[in-house]
Every structure is written in structure tokens, then in C-alpha cells.
């Protein structure tokens, strides 16, 4: 039923919207109620699994921004089903968990609003069949996770870390968007189900490299691959339920999911495979090594998440059928145990008040159920039989041993990664519960967490165990279809089992377990040097790089703004006029030509004299320092203009000009005593610079006028107006007829301008000019 995809989304977004009021009504119980929504969605998706296992896919499609090529299309296939079940299933448990963890929090309703919105976005992301819809949900996960990471927003550090996650993933998303657009342009469609069939077209395109790199920009930032890994451990600022959710099933998997999604269309080329494999393996190794030096429970888990993301990316890059099998198996296993471990860590934190693993030990007696859940999850993560994690790891080694030559590096990386990860798993999941009790050193007296907080981890831990024992429960219905989607073909026959006989992968597993356990026992050694090591590498780390870029941008913005927005009007005028001069010169030199004719015969001595007087007066007006001189000079210019109007047949203009000039002088006189004395404030050099610019501009205007009057000018319209003036408009003064009839709208606008100016002047004067005291002049 295609519409069930939409319904499952609506369940979750609907729950998000009602969350604040529900929590106000039912207080903490609200969370339990709200968890029904994701569970319902989970059920709805699960009910479709039969069809998916049969090799079908379910597509829901409605038109949206169709002129932009964006339809709201959702599709449930194997991969979407797997991810969708994780998102909703784990999501439901997280909602439940949060109702205990956030018990009594004043902003609980808002928390659920964000969390469920995030969940909805994530579900939409995995279900979308259109690149643009996928991007929409992708950005929604970014912004909702921003709200979640910064949930404790009174802390400056929370805000900073939330911003870091947002900017990093946001930057990647922009690259990804560009990549999507290129894909869309090359393929002519944004529908994933269509694009996936066009692998050859895309890979043959000259833009292939660009689109791969851009899409990887998005995927790598989201899935925290080196060098964008730094935001992920920082995202721990979020409340623990959020971390558990973001890091297990959702946010960080989005990038890997995207890569898997596009694998059929973009994959298979060396660029794709090598980039993924190399970046993935580096991320894996870096993450597990850094993880060894962490003391914070959540930080340890965060680094293992990073490692897993690297591993998944690497497997995708290797790209063989085995590798993809391994990847899917590992993805499923990881989601289960990582969510459980985070919730356990949250419970421990919640009950003891600390997450410092050097303090936490021996809690198993006080928190037995949590301890059991932690143990189950940690063992699954360690890849010990009979847990599902073991199957995942076996698959990886199996995939690895098929490699040869230089590619063996990836097997080594996987091996190293795995045994370090096991050490970390034990450190986080087992360490706090075993050993000697240390309760006095803890900030709070611990006791068992409430049922809402242990049900989730226990359930997930048990599922990890059950699936390990009975893998056929998911093999055909969920895992195989997912693999099929990633490989872009039919659903493969696969068989997951704990026991594959004595072979190289088993040997590697044994070494892994031995190495991991050994390292776990030595954990104290790493703690001893943890702080100095972290401090030492920090300046070279990616986070420091981020800070440098961030601060650099701010610095640049300040410097730029200081340079441009100086606050000095003359700088602005200078800039504007200079650019105008540049444009004009460009236009004239390139296109206008400098030639024009001049008729020297027409010069009439009286007019020449008039113009010369006006030029002198103009210069006096700008240079004089006494108001009276300036006013006389301005008046001379004004009256001179009026005379020019008279000479050239414009009596209306001349009279208007005379009256306006007179009134201007009168108005000037009213305020003249309020004005400061005219004085020169600029240096001579500035004046010369300004004079040069101003004269250049003036010269260009002269040139433009000369060019304009030079062009053979067609007076057709004026002549027609003159001809119509009396017969049709009943007026003999053509200028006036134009003003009140032909172009009366101009005049209407103009009287509105003067009316508004009058109101404005009155308003300004009325805003409390001080009455001047003391004798004036």
C-alpha cells in the first residue's frame, strides 16, 4: 500500500506537533504515549516487508514542485525498509527512554517536538525516492539535530557545538546539492529509481568527477568521515537519548545511507571505490586510536561510532558483493548495540552523575538490569559469538580475505579497527559494571534506572543475541533485500550463520577477541596519558582547523566591513562615483566611440560670457568659506540657468527657476544661523584626489551630452505633442499642456513629492530643535 509510507511519516510528524501539548497534559506520561507513533510507523513498515522480500518496491508519488523537477515521491525498497525499521524501532525505544531520562524537565514538550521532527526527517530521508526530497529531509535532519545538540542552550559550549555540527553538515549539504543538481541535469531526472538505471550515462558524463566529489562532500560531512569527523564527538553535548539516537540508527548513518543509495548509479568506478575505501579506512583507524584516549563514556562511544562509519564507508568502497553483505550486516548490528550502549551510558550518567570511566566501576550490583543490557550490547559489539555482531564481523573478514595485493591493506585496517573497537566496547559496556565498587567517589548514589530507561537497552541487547542465534529471522526479509538495493540488482541469495567452519576469518576473529580483551585490560595505561595526548594533538586536529577557518571568516568579515562600511559619507560617494566613472569609461571606450562633431560657428559672445560667469560662480560656490559668498554664487548659477532657459525658448522654466532660486535663498536664510561655519577639513592631497575624480566625472558627463546632442535626433513625439496640443488638448502652451494633460501623472507624482517634503520638513523641525540661547550673530 503506497500510501502507508506517507502515513508512517505523518504519524511521526503529527506526534511531533502534538508533543508540546501532550506533555503539558500528561507530564512524563506524554513520552510513553508519543512512543506509540514511531512504533506504529514501525509496524506499518514491517507489514510491507513481505512485498519487499518478494523483490517488489513500493512507491508513493504526488506532484510537488513539478516545474523544478521535484515530485514528492517515496519508495520503500530493501535498503529503505532496513533503515526505516531502525529509525522507527530504535526511535520508539528512544522516546520511551527519554521519558525516563528527561523526567520532570521543564522543556520536555519541546524536546519531543525536536526529537520526533528529527525522527520524521530521518524517516523521510530514507524513504525518499527523489533527490530533492531527500535533500529536503537531509537538511531537516541537520536543523533538527542542531536544535537537539543545542538543547541545553544555556551553556555556551552547547550552542557552539550545535553550530559546529550545523555548519559542517550544512557546508557539505551545499556541495551535495550542487552534486544533485549536476546529476539531475545529466540524467534529466531527480527520481532515484530512474537515476539508478542510468549508471552508465552518469559515469560517462564529463561531470562525473564533479558530481561524485560534491556528493561525497555531503555524505562525508554528514557521516563524519575524516577530515570532517570532529563534529561528531562534539555532538555529545546533546542529551543522551539524542546521542543514542543520532549515533546509532540515524543522523550519522544518513551519509552512509546516501552512498549506498547512489552506489548503483555512481559506484563501480575507481574514483568512487578508492575514495570511499581510503577515506573510510583512515576514519576507522583514526577514530579507534583516538577512542583509546577518551575517558568520557559518551566520548568513547562516539569514537567507536566514527570508527564504524569509517568501516561502513570502506566496505561500500570495496564494493564486492561480500563487502556489501558485510556492510549491511554490520550496519544492522551496530544500530542495535550502539543504541543500547548509549542508553546504558545515559542511565549510568543519570544515576551516578558522572560519565568518567576512571571513576565508574562495579555498578552491577546496584544497577543489575542496566548492567545486563550493557553487557549484552558490549559483547555484541565486541563481535563475540553468539551475538549478531559476530556475524557482522565474520562477514567483514570474509569480504576482506577475497582481496589481494595492495587491497589487503583494507583487511588489515578492518582487523586493527575491529580489535581496538572491541577494547572500546568493553571499556564502555563492561568496565563500569565490573571490578570493585567505587560508589563513594560518585557524585550521586546510584540505583537502578526506571523501567522506561532499561527496557530499550535490554530489548536491543536481547535482539542482538536472538538475531545472532537465529539470523534467518532477518536474512531473507530484511538483509537480503537491502543488499539487493545497494548492489542495484536482484535480491541475492544469502545465508547468515554463526558458524562457517574453521577458516581464515574465524582465525582473525579469534585474534580480534584476544587483542581486544588484552587492550581492555591495559586501559588504565591509556587513561594515564589520555589528557596530555589529547592536548598535544589538538592543535593539529580537524577541530582546530575548523576553529581557524571559522575565526578566519569572522575576521575577514570584520576587516571587509571596516574597509567598506567606514561610516564616512565621502568614502561612499567616492566609491560610487569612482565605479560609475569606471563603468562609463569602459562603455565609452569599448562601445561608444569618442568621436563627435562640434559646430564652433554658433558661439555667441554674450552666451559665452554668461557660461563663463556661471562656471566661475560654480567654482566659487564650492570653494568659498563665507555663507554670503556661497549664496551669491549659487544664486548666480541659478539665475544663469534661468537665462539659458530664456535664451532657448523655455519661459515657463525660466520663471519657475527664478522663483525657486529666490525661495531657496529665503529658506537658506532662515536656517543660516543654525548652520556651522563653512570650513575646510580635508587635507590638500584629499582635495586634489577628490577634484580629479569629480572632474573626470564631470568631463564624462560633458562627453555624454555632446554625444547625445550629436546623434541624429528624432523629434517625432515632441512634434506630435505640439501638433495635438491645441486641437486636442485645448492649450496653446505646449509645456503646460504636457504638464497637466499629456503627462499629468508625472505632475501628480510631483505634487505628492512636494507635499511629502513639506510634511517632512515640518516633522523634522517639530522634533525639538533647541531654542537657541544667547545673542545670535
Amino acid at each position, binding site marked *: 500500500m503506497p500510501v502507508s509510507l506517507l502515513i508512517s511519516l505523518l504519524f511521526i510528524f503529527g506526534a511531533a506537533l502534538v508533543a508540546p501539548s501532550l506533555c503539558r497534559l500528561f507530564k512524563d506520561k506524554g513520552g510513553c504515549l508519543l512512543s506509540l507513533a514511531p512504533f506504529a510507523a514501525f509496524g506499518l513498515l514491517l507489514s510491507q516487508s513481505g512485498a519487499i522480500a518478494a523483490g517488489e518496491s513500493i512507491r508513493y508519488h504526488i506532484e510537488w514542485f513539478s516545474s523544478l523537477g521535484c515530485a514528492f515521491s517515496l519508495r520503500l525498497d530493501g535498503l529503505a525498509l532496513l533503515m526505516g525499521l531502525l529509525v522507527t524501532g530504535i526511535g520508539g525505544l528512544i522516546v520511551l527512554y527519554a521519558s525516563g531520562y528527561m523526567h520532570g524537565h521543564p522543556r520536555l514538550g519541546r524536546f519531543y517536538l525536536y526529537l520526533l521532527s528529527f525522527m520524521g526527517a530521518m524517516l523521510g530521508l530514507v524513504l525518499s525516492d527523489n533527490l530533492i526530497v531527500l535533500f*529536503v529531509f537531509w*537538511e531537516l535532519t541537520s536543523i533538527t539535530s542542531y536544535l537537539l545538540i543545542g538543547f541545553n542552550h544555556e551553556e555556551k559550549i552547547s550552542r557552539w557545538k550545535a553550530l559546529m555540527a550545523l555548519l559542517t553538515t550544512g557546508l557539505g549539504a551545499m556541495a551535495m546539492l*550542487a552534486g544533485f543538481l549536476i546529476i539531475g541535469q545529466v540524467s534529466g531526472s531527480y527520481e532515484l529509481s530512474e537515476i539508478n538505471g542510468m549508471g552508465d550515462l552518469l559515469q560517462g558524463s564529463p561531470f562525473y568527477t564533479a558530481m561524485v566529489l560534491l556528493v561525497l562532500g555531503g555524505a562525508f560531512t554528514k557521516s563524519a568521515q575524516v577530515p570532517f569527523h570532529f563534529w561528531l564527538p562534539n555532538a555529545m553535548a546533546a542529551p543522551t537519548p539524542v546521542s543514542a539516537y543520532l549515533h546509532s540508527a540515524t543522523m550519522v548513518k544518513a551519509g552512509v545511507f546516501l552512498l549506498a543509495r547512489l552506489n548503483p548509479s555512481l559506484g563501480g568506478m575507481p574514483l568512487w571505490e578508492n575514495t570511499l575505501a581510503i577515506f573510510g579506512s583512515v576514519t576507522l583507524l583514526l577514530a579507534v586510536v583516538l577512542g583509546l584516549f577518551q575517558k568520557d563514556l559518551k566520548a568513547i562511544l562516539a569514537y567507536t561510532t566514527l570508527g564504524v562509519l569509517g568501516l561502513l564507508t570502506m566496505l561500500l568502497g570495496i564494493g564486492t558483493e561480500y563487502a556489501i553483505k558485510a556492510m549491511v550486516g554490520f550496519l544492522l548490528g551496530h544500530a542495535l548495540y550502539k543504541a543500547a550502549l548509549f542508553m546504558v551510558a545515559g542511565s549510568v550518567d543519570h544515576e551516578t552523575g558522572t560519565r568518567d570511566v576512571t571513576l565508574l566501576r562495579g555498578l552491577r550490583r546496584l544497577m543489575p538490569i542496566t548492567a545486563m543490557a550493557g553487557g549484552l550490547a558490549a559483547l555484541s559489539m565486541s563481535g563475540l559469538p553468539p551475538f549478531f555482531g559476530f556475524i557482522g564481523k565474520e562477514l567483514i573478514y570474509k569480504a576482506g580475505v577475497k582481496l589481494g595485493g595492495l587491497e589487503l591493506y583494507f583487511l588489515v585496517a578492518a582487523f586493527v579497527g575491529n580489535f581496538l573497537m572491541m577494547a572500546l566496547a568493553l571499556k564502555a559496556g563492561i568496565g563500569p559494571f565490573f571490578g570493585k565498587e567505587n560508589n563513594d567517589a560518585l557524585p550521586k548514589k546510584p540505583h537502578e534506572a526506571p523501567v522506561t530507561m532499561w527496557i530499550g537497552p535490554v530489548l536491543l541487547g536481547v535482539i542482538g543475541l536472538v538475531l545472532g542465534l537465529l539470523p534467518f529471522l532477518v536474512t531473507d526479509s530484511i538483509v537480503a533485500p537491502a543488499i539487493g538495493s545497494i548492489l542495484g540488482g536482484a535480491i541475492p541469495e544469502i545465508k547468515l550463520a554463526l558458524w562457517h567452519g574453521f577458516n581464515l576469518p574465524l582465525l582473525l576473529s579469534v585474534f580480534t577477541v584476544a587483542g581486544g580483551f588484552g587492550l581492555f585490560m591495559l586501559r588504565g595505561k591509556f587513561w594515564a596519558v589520555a589528557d596530555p595526548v589529547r592536548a598535544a594533538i589538538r592543535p593539529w586536529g580537524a577541530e582546530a582547523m575548523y576553529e581557524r577557518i571559522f575565526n578566519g571568516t569572522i575576521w575577514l568579515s570584520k576587516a571587509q566591513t571596516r574597509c567598506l562600511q567606514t561610516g564616512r559619507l565621502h568614502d561612499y560617494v567616492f566609491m560610487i562615483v569612482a565605479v560609475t566613472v569606471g563603468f562609463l569609461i569602459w562603455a565609452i571606450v*569599448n562601445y561608444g566611440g569618442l568621436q563627435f562633431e562640434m559646430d564652433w560657428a554658433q558661439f555667441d559672445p554674450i552666451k559665452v560670457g554668461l557660461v563663463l560667469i556661471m562656471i566661475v560662480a560654480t567654482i566659487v560656490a564650492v570653494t568659498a568659506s563665507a555663507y554670503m559668498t556661497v549664496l551669491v554664487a549659487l544664486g548666480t548659477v541659478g539665475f544663469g540657468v534661468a537665462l539659458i532657459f530664456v535664451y532657448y525658448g523655455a519661459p515657463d522654466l525660466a520663471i519657475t527657476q527664478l522663483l525657486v532660486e529666490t525661495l531657496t535663498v529665503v529658506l537658506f536664510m532662515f536656517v543660516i544661523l543654525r548652520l556651522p561655519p563653512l570650513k575646510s577639513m580635508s587635507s590638500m592631497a584629499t582635495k586634489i584626489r577628490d577634484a580629479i575624480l569629480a572632474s573626470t566625472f564631470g568631463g564624462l558627463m560633458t562627453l555624454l551630452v555632446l554625444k*547625445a546632442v550629436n546623434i541624429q535626433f528624432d*523629434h517625432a513625439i515632441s512634434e506630435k505633442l505640439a501638433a495635438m496640443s491645441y486641437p486636442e488638448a485645448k492649450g496653446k502652451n505646449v509645456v503646460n499642456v504636457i504638464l497637466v494633460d499629456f503627462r499629468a501623472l508625472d505632475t501628480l507624482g510631483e505634487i505628492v513629492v512636494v507635499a511629502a517634503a513639506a510634511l517632512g520638513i515640518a516633522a523634522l523641525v517639530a522634533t525639538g530643535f533647541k531654542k537657541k540661547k544667547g545673542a545670535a550673530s
Partner: protein
Amino acid sequence: MSEYALLLPILIPLIGVVLLLLGARSLAVQRAGGVLFSSLTFAASLYLLFAVDQADYLVMQMGAWEAPFGISLVADRFSAVMVAVSSFMGAAVGIYALSEIDEARLKKFFFPLYLVLIFGVNGAFLTGDLFNLYVWFEVMLIASFVLMSMGGEKGELEGGLKYVCLNLLSSVMFLAGAGIIYGKTGTLNMADIGQQLMLAENADWALSSSMLLLVSFGLKAGMFPFFFWLPASYHTPPSAVSAVFAGLLTKVGVYALFRSYTLIFMPLFPEVQNILLWLAILTMVTGVLGAASHFDMRRILSFHIVSQIGYMVLGLAFMTPLALAAAIFYLVHHIIVKTNLFLVSGVVIRMKGSCDLAKVGGLCNSAPWLAALFFIPAFSLGGIPPLSGFWAKFALVKSGVEIHAWWAVTFALLVGVLTLYSMTKIWAEAFWKKQPEDVDTTPAKPVGPLVFMVAPIVVLSISTVVIGFFGEPLFEFSERAAAQLLDPQSYISAVLPQPAEVSP
């Protein structure tokens, strides 16, 4: 008769001006009239929008003088949608002003001047005559000058002085450019100028004068490197005034640029394409960096106007059907969102006495509804889907990718991230952070009930969301409008019915 639809968005505010001036004494009349006439204008503008969408072009030859002898009012879809959106803002901010504009300003004829502003803006969108456009610009400018400085506060006056001087410079360049163009073509009708340049064998001689208009319009639009007046002044007057300025004034400049290069100077476009492209890019970048450097809500928002103008001009510079449609969509989105953000800043000031981010905080807890109302426009501006801003940016970037304008696309996307940064800065500081203890900001005594300020914000926020979710009709409309812009010949034949009468 539907031609009268053209007239109403101009006539109604003007009648309002007259009546409010006559009813000067009563503040109640001023308030009621301001809201009534701005709302009526909005209704009329909707009528215009529908009429134009039916008829493709509406033309009214003022005074019944056939073009190009009189002044033509012309509306194509682009004009009509601009009128509709700006009148929408006019009505929304009119209501908002009820509770923000104090008595002193009302007595100084705030509302008549406000209506003059709407009158000027609508006139500028609807005129088909170059000199008449100049007049509309002046109407709009004088109204905005007065609205900006009428409070007489120091900041208003300082900013206002720069605003006035630089805009007068722009007006003079406009006048000079228009004069020279008249000198060369003998006509002022935009369609006629366009036709003459198209028919001319070589229209390059018009380039120099078109540069004057480019600078003039660029200055009004707030483009790099002419935008200085904007960040210097927009944050100084009351928020209602800033909001309506932010929404409308620069957009008139953008509109004029669009008109210039799709109609008046169409044949010159290839020569200026690169200039426009790089000016647009620089506008985006300098604007967004300016915003990043500031720490006051309204200053940040002011610089963002500049930055966003760059996107719109970018659409013009691309000059493909999709790019123009995207730019028109962008304009609509941006007008709504930017107005709304300034309105929100006004509520912040009302609550906290300041919108300096160093002095305010804790709004997320003390006024979560306001947080939600800020969140929508802010993250729409930041391009977060599925809000309106995302589609605007997406369409624009898509059009850039289609013509392989890689630099422009790169900068457009990077600027998007920085825009998001600025919005999160406001969000984190004003809403998330705790209210700083040691600042003394006492909110001024409120003028009217809060509901008049919040209601417009709610309406505008809903519009943003609706455009985001159901924006396809608007986008299709933008595409139709863009198609008209790319077909100046049909504009010309709509305005000049008998081209034979006009000598080439």
C-alpha cells in the same frame, strides 16, 4: 474595464493620503485610515494580479493619449506580482504600526507618508515610462526619507543623512541617464525605447547612458559597491519602518534593473552580463560578510538585504527562463521573509528594550511563541527546506548549474551557509542564551496591544510556510512572468498597438 485594476493600487493609497491629511487631528482616524487604505490597496492589488494573469498585459494610457505620447501604465505578471506582494507587506506592516508607532510620529503624519510610500512603490512597479519611473522613485524616496528621520533621534538623523545624500546622487544619475536616452531616442516610453534599440543596427551607443541607470538602480537596490547607505540607516527607525523599507524599497531597484535589461536595454544585455554577474556575486559575498561581522539583530538583517539582493540580480544575470522565474520567486519570498524578520526584531525590542545581541537573551524560554515565529522566517532566509527560501535558492542554483555558471553557483551556495550562520547567531544569542544580567535595557512603554504586532508576523510566517509546502502555483506563475520578461516584443506590442506609427 479591467484596466482600472491598474489604477486602483495607486489611487487608493493616494486617496488615503488626502483623507488622512484632512483628518489630521484625530489619531484614531489616522490609525484606522492607515490600516484601511493599506488593506484596500492590498485587495486591489490582488484583483490586479488576477486580472493580469487572465489578460497577460494590462495597459492604461493615462489621459487617453496613445503611447508613446502620454504616460502608459503597464502591468505584466512581474509588475503585478510585485505590486501584490508589496501591498501585502503594506497592509501587514500597517497593522503592525498600530502598536509600534507612537503618538508623536502619528501627529507628524506617519500614516499619510506611509501611504505615500505605498503609492510610490506601486507606481514604480506599474509605470511604463522612464521619466515617470523617475517621478515614482522620488515619491518613494521622499516618503522614505521622512519616515526614516521623522523621529528626530540621533541615529535616525545620522543614518538618514547618508540615506538621503546617496539616494539623491542616485536620482541625479537616473535623471541624467534618462535625459541622455531621451536625447538619443526622442522617447520616454520604455517599450518605445526598447523597440528603437532593438531596431537599431547598432545600439552600443546607448551603453554609456545605460551605465548611469545601472548605477542608479544598483544604488537603490543596494548592490555592491553602492549599498553603503543601507546598512548605515535601515536599523535606525522604528521596526515597522525598517520592515517596510527592507521589504519594498530595494526591491524597486531590483525591479528597475530587471525592467532595464529585459525591456529597455534588452539588446545591450550581452555586454553587461558579466558586469551584472560579478556585481551580483560581490553583492552576495560582501553582504553576507557584513552580516557576519555585526552583533545587532537589525544590523545583521540589514546586511542580509544586501546579500540577498545579490541572489536576485544573479537571476537576472543568468537570463534564462528558469533563472528569471527563480529570481521572481526569490523576490516574493524575500520580501515576505525580510519584512517579517524586521517585524520580529521590533517585538524583541518591545520586550527587551534593545535588539543588540549582547543585551538580549533567554527569549526561547520567556517567549517560545516568538522563537517559533522567528525560526520560520530566519531559517527560510537561511535556505532550510521546505521553507520558501530553499526553493528560491534551489531554483536559482539549478538555473546556474544549467548554464554552467560554476563560480556563481559556488558563491551562491557558500553564501547560503554563511546566511545560515548569521541566522543561527541571532537564534543562539537572542533566543537560546540566558538573558545577560548586567545590562540595563528598559523596554519603552508600549504604544498598543501586542496582538497587532504579532498578528502580521503570524500571517507572514504562515505565508512562508505555505509557499514552502505549496509553492508550485507561485513558481508556475513566476515562470509565466519570466516568459513574459524574455519576450519584450509582446510587451511592446501590448503598449504600442500600432508600431507603424513610430518611426524607427
